[in-house]
């Protein structure tokens, strides 16, 4: 398709690909993890893998807030939505995420739960205003990027004195998850993949800045390049990582300087820290409990906290034991290494987190890349 877009120029892309090939040393592997699902999606959709040398491998990290939401949290939301007084507002891509035993919000809606798909937090506020006799709960989800809008919404509800509005908070933080990939007890059982560098998420960094990643660069000796989501951004970030590796550097570099600064958006950060506080633990699908990786509303805002307001109990559900998500999210295995891939687990019937949203590693490979498996088989 003819996108007249400066970030998708084929000639520049081919030029970058050539430079990357020229600068990578044949004798060593380059293993880079893109943390964010948006990057995974871009890599698959534009077929970037075909443009990179064979000894450079992109490892798809856990960075999709939909994928990492554990089945238990979905079950909690379904239970909530089944209460007759409640209207649950959710983003469309959560509708198909499987809870336990094949349950999903889409199915709960079909059975009569009042679940409304919204496109922005403002819609949820509007629905609360239009339905004063009902309880409206917004299913809040996302990384650092989507937390400020939730904060703004709570402020707005306060200002409008809405007494029938609350938030089911599932906001999570990226740095603790990145750290978990590099050092967590599970690594002993599933093994560790060597990661030579990270492509850092741009949208997250527009809020939190690049500074939180400096810790990785120093503590783990891993280069981090914050990258935009256009395919050219990615190619350039990969080249920047190759150069750091070649020069034995491990710094935080910013490819996305058109929007990201070291400190990020101070106002947004303040707003978030006013309203939210860290949870001691939060479960990530595929990663398990990750300390200090999730947010909840501060006690002062308890009346807007659906978990408090409706006495929601934490539900825990085990994923299918055959699912290899944990190993895939850490880059130890590839989607095709999972027995369930493409047989019982497909985007229509996702079993694990990586297949849930189009940005998950398994879904991206299934949707855009699986022809390569057959090519490889034929070649070998």
């Amino acid at each position, binding site marked *: 398709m003819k996108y007249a877009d400066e970030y998708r120029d084929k000639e520049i892309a081919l030029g970058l690909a050539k430079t990357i090939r020229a600068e990578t040393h044949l004798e060593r592997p380059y293993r880079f993890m893109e943390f964010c699902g948006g990057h995974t999606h871009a890599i698959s959709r534009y077929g970037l893998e075909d443009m990179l040398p064979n000894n450079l491998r992109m490892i798809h990290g856990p960075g999709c807030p939909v994928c990492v939401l554990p089945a238990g949290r979905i079950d909690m939301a379904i239970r909530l939505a089944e209460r007759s007084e409640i209207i649950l507002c959710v983003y469309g891509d959560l509708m198909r995420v499987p809870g336990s035993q094949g349950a999903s919000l889409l199915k709960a809606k079909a059975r009569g739960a009042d679940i409304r798909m919204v496109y922005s937090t403002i*819609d949820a506020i509007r629905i609360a205003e239009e339905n004063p006799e009902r309880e409206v709960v917004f299913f809040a989800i996302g990384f650092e990027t989507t937390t400020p809008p939730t904060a703004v919404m709570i402020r707005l509800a306060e200002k409008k004195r809405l007494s029938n509005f609350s938030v089911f908070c599932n906001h999570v933080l990226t740095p603790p998850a990145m750290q978990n990939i590099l050092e967590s007890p599970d690594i002993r059982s599933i093994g560790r993949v060597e990661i030579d560098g990270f492509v850092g998420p741009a949208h997250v960094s527009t809020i939190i800045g690049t500074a939180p990643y400096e810790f990785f660069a120093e503590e783990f000796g891993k280069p981090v390049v914050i990258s935009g989501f256009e395919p050219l951004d990615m190619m350039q970030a990969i080249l920047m990582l190759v150069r750091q590796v070649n020069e034995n550097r491990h710094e935080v570099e910013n490819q996305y300087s058109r929007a990201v600064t070291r400190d990020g958006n101070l106002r947004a950060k303040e707003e978030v820290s006013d309203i939210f506080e860290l949870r001691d633990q939060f479960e990530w699908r595929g990663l398990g409990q990750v300390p200090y990786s999730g947010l909840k509303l501060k006690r002062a805002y308890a009346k807007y906290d659906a978990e408090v307001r409706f006495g929601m109990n934490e539900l825990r559900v085990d994923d299918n034991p055959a699912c290899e998500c944990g190993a895939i999210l850490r880059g130890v295995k590839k989607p095709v290494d999972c027995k369930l891939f493409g047989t019982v687990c497909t*985007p229509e019937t996702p079993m694990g987190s990586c297949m849930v949203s189009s940005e998950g590693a398994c879904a991206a490979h299934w949707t855009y890349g699986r022809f*390569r498996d057959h090519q490889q088989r034929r070649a070998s």
Partner: protein
Amino acid sequence: MKAYQRKLDIRNGCVDLSHGSGGRAMAQLISGLFHEAFGNEWLARGNDQSAFDVGAGRMVMTTDGYVVSPLFFPGGNIGSLAVHGTVNDIAMAGAKPLYLSASFIIEEGFRFADLKTIAESMGEAARSAGVHIITGDTKVVERGKADGLFISTAGVGVVPDGFDLSAENARVGDRVLISGTLGDHGVAIMSKRQNLAFETEIVSDSAALNDLVAKMVVAGGRGIRLMRDPTRGGLAATLNEIALQSDVGFHLQEEAIPVKPGVAAACELLGLDPLHVANEGKLVAIVAPEVAGAVLAAMRGHPLGRDAADIGEAVADDHHFVQMATSFGGGRIVDWLSGEQLPRIC
């Protein structure tokens, strides 16, 4: 037929349950609104069915339900869509569409004025496609039991002798042609959905393709293997279906696929892929390589095929993959959509 005492108050009135009851009010609605809009000799006879002559050749028949929301969108409404969709399904067989039926399920409270606009654009769409709406049905359901208005249309047409377009006809080496830009209808509809209103100039491509098809048939004859209109599910679903049915794969060139910049931008914003977005006035033709040039030229010579393009070819592939060389230089699969196309959040 003129024995009704009062005329419908089209400007201010609305449909109530009596308009579906089979009594006078219903007759009034049908003659005052639908017959007026569709006006033809068959309807004028006022029978519960219509008899018509059948020429030589094989008959083609199709039926389809229309439940679009919103009912009015840039570039058309549910009425014109209901005619175009059914005409196109017939035309894709290489057939000449002749007659349509139309059945209306109307929610109590629906405004006459809107119904009239819709009926008139159905009449207009039928006239310009050269078909007649010769029988119909009207039901009124209680408020809350339908989303305003549902229409279902059926159509018949005739395929010339010796012509047999079918989904299993694609052969390795065949070219894939499309008649114009993709995704216009889906984006036009989405831009008007509640909660999602965004600014765009894009209008639906809803159109009857039978005339375009007739020109293509003259140029390509039996070199045309099959045609499909990529409606819901978009080009991706259509090609995946054909790949399975014809036991081939497809290789597309992303660069060759026409998409309007506004459609590309809206898709980008919503996290959608234009290849999955619905069209209502486009067709895909799989044609033998020898006639591809002639068919393409014929398409481009028609107003509805001005942006027609040759976007790829059928290849041998046991896995029936639809693969695409991206405009960026890589490769990927063009898969079916899983579930409904839902905007993503991140």
